[in-house]
């Protein structure tokens, strides 16, 4: 059975808050790509490259926001990783900037996380994201609650 990768159609669903979440390293390697809008595979690759290009040229004196096509990217850099969230231009920048910071749960979850943890445990990172964001919306904002849930899931076989 040949199944297509998610969505050859590029349908625009209006009003989704988050369009996608990307975690990339400085070299542009994707450590997580979570899409909340349907893009075809080529389009995804293009977006990944474009985001890398606009984000990595910026320094600490720049804002954490970049206009991006008809959207904007809210991003934050932790060591060598860029955490990027693409949202509508009129969304609340600071709320998403701090939503990114909630990813510090990864730190606790992986005991002092490093980039390699995300590579080797890529399938768990999806679980973390689904706890925090769902359907393009912020699902859970309490780090304590997210972590408790993750540890509970970790204990299951």
């Amino acid at each position, binding site marked *: *059975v040949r*199944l297509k*990768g*998610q969505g050859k159609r590029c349908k625009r*669903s*209006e009003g*989704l808050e988050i369009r996608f979440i990307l975690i990339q390293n400085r070299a542009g390697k994707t450590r997580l*790509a979570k899409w909340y809008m349907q893009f075809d595979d080529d389009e995804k*690759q293009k977006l990944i490259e474009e985001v890398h290009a606009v984000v990595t040229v*910026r320094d600490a004196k*720049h*804002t954490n*926001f970049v*206009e991006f096509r*008809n959207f904007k990217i809210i991003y934050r850099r*932790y*060591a*060598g*990783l860029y955490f990027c969230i693409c949202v509508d*231009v*009129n969304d*609340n*920048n*600071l*709320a998403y*900037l*701090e*939503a990114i910071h909630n*990813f*510090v*749960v*990864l*730190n*606790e979850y992986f*005991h*002092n*996380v*490093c*980039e*390699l943890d*995300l590579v*080797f*445990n890529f*399938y768990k990172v*999806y679980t973390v994201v689904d706890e925090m964001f*769902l*359907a393009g*919306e*912020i*699902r*859970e*904002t*309490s780090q304590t*609650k997210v972590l408790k*849930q993750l540890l*509970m*899931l*970790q*204990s299951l*076989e």
Partner: protein
Amino acid sequence: RTEIAEYRANRSVVPRCAVPCPARPGADTTAIMPAVSKGDGMRGLAVFISDIRNCKSKEAEIKRINKELANIRSKFKGDKALDGYSKKKYVCKLLFIFLLGHDIDFGHMEAVNLLSSNKYTEKQIGYLFISVLVNSNSELIRLINNAIKNDLASRNPTFMCLALHCIANVGSREMGEAFAADIPRILVAGDSMDSVKQSAALCLLRLYKASPDLVPMGEWTARVVHLLNDQHMGVVTAAVSLITCLCKKNPDDFKTCISLAVSRLSRIVSSASTDLQDYTYYFVPAPWLSVKLLRLLQCYPPPEDAAVKGRLVECLETVLNKAQEPPKSKKVQHSNAKNAILFETISLIIHYDSEPNLLVRACNQLGQFLQHRETNLRYLALESMCTLASSEFSHEAVKTHIDTVINALKTERDVSVRQRAADLLYAMCDRSNAKQIVSEMLRYLETADYAIREEIVLKVAILAEKYAVDYSWYVDTILNLIRIAGDYVSEEVWYRVLQIVTNRDDVQGYAAKTVFEALQAPACHENMVKVGGYILGEFGNLIAGDPRSSPPVQFSLLHSKFHLCSVATRALLLSTYIKFINLFPETKATIQGVLRAGSQLRNADVELQQRAVEYLTLSSVASTDVLATVLEEMPPFPERESSILAKLKRKKGPGAASALDDGRRDPSSNDINGGVEPTPSTVSTPSPSADLLGLRAAPPPAAPPASAGAGNLLVDVFDGPAAQPSLGPTPEEAFLRFVCKNNGVLFENQLLQIGVKSEFRQNLGRMYLFYGNKTSVQFQNFSPTVVHPGDLQTHILSGLGHPAPRQLSSPRGSPQTQVDGGAQVQQVLNIECLRDFLTPPLLSLPVTINKFFQPTEMAAQDFFQRWKQLSLPQQEAQKIFKANHPMDAEVTKAKLLGFGSALLDNVDPNPENFVGAGIIQTKALQVGCLLRLEPNAQAQMYRLTLRTSKEPVSRHLCELLAQQF
């Protein structure tokens, strides 16, 4: 391995300060791979990933992957049944390979099998594979849906969440069809766990967005709204997103959410910094929930209930107050969270746009941020102030920050911040500060980033045009634009300056002088040559008196640029040259020489060759008179939407454009670009306050022109000796006919016929008068004079004659004094109704007050309410009169519509009666009018009742209209 060791040395992707974390035991061991936690260690997967990472080349990687794919395929096809663990591991490897960018064409069935495992880790990998790789497939979707159905029914919250997340991630229509009915049930069920409710709310949101028709509304609406009261903040957070989405489509059904949202918000905002425990983020109580609630409220107008509104205003004030308190933490997370709420609060205040006090406070707060050391805050403050600038309550407050904003434009390091500063300067610009802002933007343009130059150019061009008080400043500004950023000055911009110069003769001489000087720069931009060529070709004669810019000097200056220009510019210059031959006969020989040159006559470019040949022949063959006619000065341009504004709108996305052009509409300001709809032009309005472009607030194009009538325009044509017994209807009769129509013959006798065509919109009108000479001899000293009362202002747009000699296009429109026998000449008048006017003229242009009627549709209820409001005796005028014409309902309807009012059906209980409504638009005021006409067929009588807010208007309209039936 080195790479891994390096990573190990540089651990900590996330700053440690964020979460206190114990030192990792054994962190200094030289492990090849990160230790996997117990329970789900897939050693094979880790080895595979490690191998891939160690591949030195793309080829090696592909080789390794192919080897793995072959291995997995054989395992899946093998005779031995795989256990759950192996299946999970191989499916996970396939997923990894897919995520590396390789196609995967098998393994789906194994993934689906994992869904029915009762082990969480196996189920999770199955669902993940489905979510990432499977969109919809007829064969598998049934199996997948079946597994999801089982998990949803399992009462195991972990499995339920996995299933819900899968639906939310895939969101296909098939899944919607299968589960749209179940999810609301799970969401509002009393025994659902909190985490399940959170997931169910967002899952439903996803399905609703993908296929709203599948999601049943109604029965559970009220219970969903009540989730706003849920004890669990996470449930509320998810529910607010769902409700916000639902209420955008069904605002009335979800109205009850307003008061619930306000009280929830109020509880959060007033709680102490640690009250909310897990939901306190760096001493800020529930920042995301607050933001979401504030966004939900932006779906609605301000609450109607006074108590709710009071509570909300209190919340908003509390947020603004808290912004002034000293921070509870120095961490950026604290201030970001706090300010996220603050900015959303300001958005809501701007959305309401009804609380001047809050708007000004918001502006002051943003003003503080303009100088904050955090770039983010400066950026957001500039952005937010842009919308504040468009509120009449805060516009002035925003303007006080002009110096800071200009400084930001000059000194900010981040181009996006400078861009916001430019946006804000554009938004805060008005007549009082236009010169300063335009000059700062011009200065910025010299060093601006290439990416935003064109936009800055457009903005400068628009502001210069919009707020030009003297047009020499406008011309200077545009020429500066071309000088500084010629490459970014689009056609729209330089076309525009030509239009404006052509349409205003008071600036033509200045423009000619200025371009002449600009062209003397050794390297001037080609756009300057275009503008210069055009303007000198039209108005070079205005500076020809000065020997320094004598015709030969002008010509040789232009021609010195000729050879370096593109074909399009050279074509334009050739037209300039032929115009010179008309303007300056002394240049004829030189120019003919140029045209005759082989490089022109035999130019490889067809356009240039054709122009050269035609112009040369024209100049040799045509008489001076013919030349003068053919090469006459261009007539004024008709006014359309400013092409520059249109371009700016196209450039920016729809969202951004609205921020720019939805700017404050100050009715008293003379926005040159005020109207974007097509409007009749006021091209050569002479008064200094006049508009150049659109007419103040332009009317919707659909507004039907009102009917005709007599106002206070006197045309003195009948006083002179030419007056003869008239042939047609008496002037009074003719005049009356125009009350309800706009076009026709106004006057006719043996000598002269005067025809009228007119159109009216809001308080403006344009009238074309056609004077036909019915005799075979020339009229000498023909001089129609328009005399009008002060309440009506007219501008004679073009003089008589078509084609008219050039002096006639002067704004005063001194008309052509000769009309040849049998010829017709035309005169155009622009009319503006300053306030209501009554005086019926002796013999007049058919401009009556009802011409400025704008029809208004309203429901019966509104009509009666307004009718009652206008119940003072002096507001009503009534007339009972005998019918002069057959009483035909259709004719009556047509007349009332022609009169300009809207006809309202189903208002009057008696269907025989007519009820109408409209607004008279004048510059000074608007007069609402209601009318009722009751025919009595038996008695052949009518009763007409007019109610307006102004007594004389009621009476006058009543008089005018009563004569029509």
